[in-house]
């Protein structure tokens, strides 16, 4: 088990390095350079070239990638922070530290400072949504799958199908119309600033509801399919022929086996919830990472886009590692291989 986990962690590191390089290449090839952005559209080409030189942007691609990694690891100072450039960028942590993601040109601040709060907000949103999604989708999926083919199953499956097919933005607008415009029970935006009228908790309700709706149907359907498939297995029949009750059969023999395939899907949802709920955050003006990513992309804030994407990659890799480990824990057949 330990050897397995270690091997997976090494694989994870390799994945991280390769994907970070790809990410770097893609963002570096996007139109416009950092120098052009700093100097503005009216700067002369030789001025741009001069700044490129100072920032090390005229070096070949692998060299630039290495520079970027060195800055990230705290081995090198970020040339943008050089007071001689007069860009007025400074970092309270000094110019060399581990995890230096550079400066956000949009906010004229280190990326770490820009990201801290949105990241916390997104984590809060994702965590609350996950707390609802996991039990709800498992409950619906297991209930439908254990009674596959019955009316209960058909009602639940149909409900899941409808919920899944409503896109996030539509669900957002529908909920806004009902609960904000019509009933005025909930706030229309969620800037996470407590006011007299709306508490922070009340501001979370609608974004969480949209995320839950978008995910539960999908996950529940996958859980249902896996459960229904497990119900037809000969060992479930063995349990029936032993004289166990339906409840005993489902809780002891079906759930553990039926949860093996949906586990990966469930953890992928976690990844999506933290890293990329752009639509939902934009609708509710929720100050999270998704909305920040959208702003950074529109502005062309390379360092910020790179950092957020890198974080999503890291989260994806870690959740997949968790999925693999939980798969091994659930399935004794793959142990020690």
């Amino acid at each position, binding site marked *: 088990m330990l050897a397995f986990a270690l091997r997976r962690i090494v694989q994870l590191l390799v994945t991280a390095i390769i994907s970070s390089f790809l990410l770097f290449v893609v963002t570096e090839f996007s139109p416009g350079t950092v120098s052009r952005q700093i100097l503005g559209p009216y700067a002369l080409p030789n001025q741009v070239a001069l700044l490129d030189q100072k920032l090390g942007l005229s070096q070949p691609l692998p060299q630039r990638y290495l520079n970027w990694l060195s800055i990230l690891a705290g081995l090198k100072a970020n040339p943008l922070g050089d007071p001689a450039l007069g860009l007025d960028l400074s970092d309270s942590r000094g110019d060399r530290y581990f995890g230096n993601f550079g400066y956000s040109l949009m906010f004229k601040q280190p990326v770490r400072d820009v990201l801290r709060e949105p990241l916390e907000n997104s984590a809060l949103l994702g965590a609350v949504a996950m707390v609802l999604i996991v039990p709800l989708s498992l409950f619906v999926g297991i209930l439908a799958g254990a009674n596959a083919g019955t009316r209960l199953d058909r009602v639940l499956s149909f409900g899941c199908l409808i919920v899944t097919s409503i896109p996030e933005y539509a669900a957002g607008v529908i909920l806004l119309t009902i609960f904000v415009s019509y009933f005025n029970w909930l706030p229309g935006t969620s800037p996470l600033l407590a006011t007299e009228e709306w508490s922070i908790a009340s501001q979370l309700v609608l974004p969480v509801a949209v995320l839950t709706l978008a995910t539960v149907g999908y996950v529940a359907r996958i859980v249902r399919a896996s459960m229904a498939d497990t119900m037809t297995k000969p*060992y479930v029949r063995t349990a029936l022929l*032993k004289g*166990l009750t339906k409840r005993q059969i489902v809780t002891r023999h079906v759930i*553990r086996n039926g949860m093996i395939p949906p586990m990966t899907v469930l953890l992928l949802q976690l990844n999506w919830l933290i890293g990329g709920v752009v639509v939902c955050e934009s609708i509710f003006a929720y100050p999270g990472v998704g909305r920040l990513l959208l702003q950074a992309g529109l502005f062309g804030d390379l360092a910020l886009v790179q950092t957020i994407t890198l974080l999503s990659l890291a989260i994806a890799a870690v959740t997949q590692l968790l999925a693999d480990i939980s798969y091994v824990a659930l399935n004794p057949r793959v142990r020690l291989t």
Partner: protein
Amino acid sequence: MSPLLQVENLSLVYGGDQVVRDLSFTIGRGESLGLVGESGSGKSSVANVIIGDLPKIARAQGRIRYEGIDLLGASREQLRALRGRRIGFVQQDPGASLNPTMRIGRQLAEALEQSDTPVRARGERAAEMLSRVGFDNPGAIMARYPHQISGGQQQRVMIAMALLPRPDLILLDEPTSGLDVTVEAAVINLIAELRAQFGTSLLFISHNLNLVAKACDRVGVLYAGDLVEEAPAGEVFQNPLHPYTQGLVNCLPGQAAVLRPIRGHVPSPQERGPGCLFASRCAYHLAGSCDAPFDMTAPDRSHRVRCARLGDIPAFARQTGAPEARGLDTAPPAVTIRQLRKSYPASGGDHFVANDGIDLEIRQGEILGLVGESGSGKSTLAKIIAGFDVATSGTIMVGDTDIASLPVRRRSRALLRQVQMVFQNPDSTLNPTHTIGWALGRAIRKLETPGTSPKTRVPDLLGLVALLPGLGSRRPKALSGGQRQRVAIARALAGRPRLLLADECVSALDVSVQAAIIELLQDIRARTGTAILFISHDLPLVRQISDRIIVLFRGKPMEVGSASQVYSLPLHPYTEALLSTGQHRAPELEQLVPGTARPAGGCPYVQRCARVVGDICWTQAPAYQRAASGHEIYCHIPPDRLLELQRASLPAHG
């Protein structure tokens, strides 16, 4: 005293299809009844209706009484109370019937949950039952997961599980399908032993008449949902009265010199009329009397037959004698295999040796039978010859070409033509979207020498495998299993191959169809002169078809000889054990997952061998010894001495 289980006029309908018709039988206390039938005979449905687990579309009529309880009218709770506690059930495929994520001990303890056994005593009871079904170390087995024990052990665990609550009746639905011959024999013996110990009644359901007759007092023969004959086990072989039973016995390998298949096919539920369902295949069919409904008749107290013309059916005459084998010692080799070795990397830098130094000649026009249990490397050998895998070392000469390390992609067309293969399952080897004619036509274009037109060759090929030319325009779905396998054989024959590889090519088919395919293969060999490597785990079947036989164990040929030499005078201890599996408990079951441990340098069979002579068996690889012309064994003990030993131990087997 009333019988334990009484089934009266049971009819079972799935949707609009009649699955079981007017079935009546009884099982007394301590009695065992076997139900045999081919696929579609409704035998499994009978077990399912007794235990009350039927698909939703099923409708049952009639009466099933178990100790006075009406099972068809019982509530769900009543049925649940009976299951496990009073009526045990052993399913087929033990590997799939055990929960893969639960330890065996816990699964066994669950069987006692409905009983009065206190929780603390359950583990002990389970361990005790495990030792009674032949485990030396119940504690260790109970701590394992199902995938950590072998198939035979899994089935013994299932039997222990069914026996634990001490039920009065156990239903066994194909309990040995998917198990090796030696393991199968051990499981059957175990069942018989336990029945004597516990006095449990049995309903044993199988497609295998031999097994059922061995394990049961009485045998019922099902055909298309009709019980056509019920008789004491011995009577079924000695004096079968129904034409179908007679035909079935004639199809069984090992019963007669020549297999006589039953022509035609089992009527589908839509084709079934009110009269005798076997009429369409029966030689004694008489339009008037057979087509109307009629009852079973009882020629004597213990024998019942459902046949309208019972008086006119001649007594069963068995053709005794050994199958005829052709001596082809002088024929030139079609394929010559020298020092063939195949090993796969295993965990821990180890190697799993699938084929180990095989020397073999397949002569032109001979049928060479290759027998061995699963994991013995017989399919690996076929795969390497066919080019789906490559050998680690050694040569396979076809003409002047070595094909041992030539994968099928790199073989020339002429080479492909020479070696062709027929696969086990015809359902999955024919593309369902193309017609039979298209599939054969493509094989002809790919394999046939230029100049022949598929138009004329397709009917030729269909004729060669005894199919009507009209079938060429049909799709595989419209064909029966036997017809599909004939098409698969025709495809392989398109290039007039020098060698035909038949890997378990009849094991997915029913006995009557199987006999017809065997007959066809022999006929094709006679007409086209192609050599056939016939691979199977079914010993009587291999005996029936082969001229020469090679017995493989862990990748090494243990004994090679003509069919009569190997079967009437088995010398190697392994062959002896294989052939005598019916008589005594095979000791090899006690060992754990097979194929893992392997003595370094010694004889591969040493761990299971009953005739080990000393350290030499463990440390030194034996050499091949010649017992007679063309008869060789891989053993340290001289052939004469082996014969003496066999004679000496004979009375012990009783």
